[in-house]
């Protein structure tokens, strides 16, 4: 969903913000700030927690009032077409990431190494999908997909569109990674030792920016797993499209609530765990 999310990069977690001791603040100010913070957190927890709690409660409601059961959660595996749509979404998100990284990363590295004059154009093209919303692009993709469909009807075809949708976010993540390392020095050192350009890219630069690649993976996967607009209009049954169609066509769609809760929980845990993975690695390096 959300077409425009520029910087949710895990790296930001450890950016040099205020420290615990808060230099620049007196003790009384610090106490007041803490009171303010906990008030805000409490309000935010209620605001965001309530619908989530309601969602889980709804997914556990039994068939008779006042009873609770796991029936809806068990239906996730058995409801016709639902498991297939989850599989499709997972496949699409993995393949989109692979295709995107194969297309974008070599181009970004090659641009820095050999054609720096192309850098501005590359950035402009990568950020362009921010200014052209998915709902607009899909109007142009529809005729293109009508042609593609003559050859292949699989929902995997969505990857071609999704690579464009994730381009701005992954570009930023990868660009931050490239900025953090000294590309010219590394490549000159490798080249003077006889490495080919391909070796420089795959064995020198890419291993030095794996954190940025991880961030890009995270962004592109959480975006494509929940993407709705393009899949819905082009008529592919991905996870979120399937949820909407179940909620419209079934008179007791409890499975929708269970599947929504599962999807939110899965993505949340994925992001949370990966934020710790990134940190452990950094400490070891330090």
């Amino acid at each position, binding site marked *: 969903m959300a077409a*425009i*999310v520029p910087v949710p990069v895990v790296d930001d977690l450890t950016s040099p913000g205020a420290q615990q001791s808060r230099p620049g603040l007196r003790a009384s*100010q610090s106490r007041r700030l803490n009171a303010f913070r906990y008030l805000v957190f409490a309000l935010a927890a209620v605001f965001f927690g309530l*619908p989530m709690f309601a969602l889980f409660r709804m997914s556990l409601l039994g068939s008779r009032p006042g009873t609770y059961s796991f029936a809806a959660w068990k239906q996730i595996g058995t409801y016709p077409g639902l498991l297939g749509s989850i599989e499709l979404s997972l496949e699409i998100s993995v393949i989109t990431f692979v295709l995107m990284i194969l297309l974008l990363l070599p181009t970004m590295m*090659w641009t820095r190494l050999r054609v720096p004059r192309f850098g501005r154009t590359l950035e402009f093209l990568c950020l362009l999908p921010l200014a052209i919303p998915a709902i607009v692009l899909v109007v142009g993709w529809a005729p293109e997909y009508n042609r593609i469909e003559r050859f292949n009807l699989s929902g995997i075809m969505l990857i071609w569109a999704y690579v*464009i949708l994730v381009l701005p976010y992954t570009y930023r993540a990868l660009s931050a990674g490239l900025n953090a390392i000294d590309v010219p020095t590394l490549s000159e050192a490798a080249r003077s030792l006889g490495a080919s350009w391909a070796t420089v890219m795959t064995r020198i630069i890419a291993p030095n920016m794996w954190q940025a690649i991880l961030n890009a993976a995270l962004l592109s996967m*959480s975006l494509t797993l929940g993407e709705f607009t393009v899949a819905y209009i082009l008529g592919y049954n991905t996870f979120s499209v399937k949820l909407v169609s179940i909620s419209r066509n079934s008179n007791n769609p409890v499975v929708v609530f269970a599947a929504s809760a599962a999807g939110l929980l899965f993505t*949340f845990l994925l992001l949370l765990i990966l934020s710790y993975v990134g940190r452990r690695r950094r400490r070891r390096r330090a």
Partner: protein
Amino acid sequence: MAVTVVTETGARPVRAGRRPPVAWVGTLPFLAYVALFLILPTGIVVWNAFQVTTTKVVNGIPVTGAKHFDLGTFNQLFNAANRGYFVNSIELAGLTALAGAILGAVLTYAVATGSPNGVIRRIALAGSGVLAQFGGVTLAFAFFALINPSNGLLLHASWYYTFPWSIGLIYLYFQIPLMVLIFLPAVDGLKAQWREAAENLGGSTWHYWRYVGGPLLLPPFLGALLLMFANALSAFATIVAWDNQISFVVPQQISSDLISEVGLFSVNGADLLALGMVILVALVMTGYALLQRRTARWLR
């Protein structure tokens, strides 16, 4: 007398500032892909927006005739129905962007002043990422579970289906997290030394925010506001999952035009509305880019 030593080096012949064109070949796969899946579809939208299909009535049955290019179709973007979708879209986007930016800024400040490696910050960022990026349809279902008219948890609210208030409230569930994600780097960029400097010069907390923190955070705040406006403008998933009976906003109408294929008697409605969206979002994003450039001056 100075002795000048001239060393002959076996330097390569200098080709003044010219790269061999072979290096440019490396950018071709990317350029081809972007041309095919980004530039071409946008071109298709713009081109089709100005296509007029003439219809003849043969034996009482309308028959589609030839298409031709007509800039006059642009006027149809401003007919009463289309104007209504744009007014609704702008109302919803403006409302949720403003409320989301203000509430989100407060939450961002609370997050930023905590420990950079703390659990609260991790949970806030992971949660924001989920709601802003993955949220979509699931948010509408969560909100339905909370207040739907028949068996909601909190309220059995009849206003669940009101526009823009109910859907605006649901939009806040991805707008506030989005604000946290895009505003946090700016708040993190406020240096403790600036606060100390203000204190040492005898400034109060009010003075600090009025003369230092506020002016520094204003451009990124306005930039985030524009970004969130564009985000709500193009949001589609949540409003479809919320209610599909009536088209309120532009994306809904684009979708129904596109899927029902009723464009027999009119110009291609979806293309024309899409063109309107491009123009509106391009204006907003230009403002964002200008503010971003100003922010980049001090945010390192």
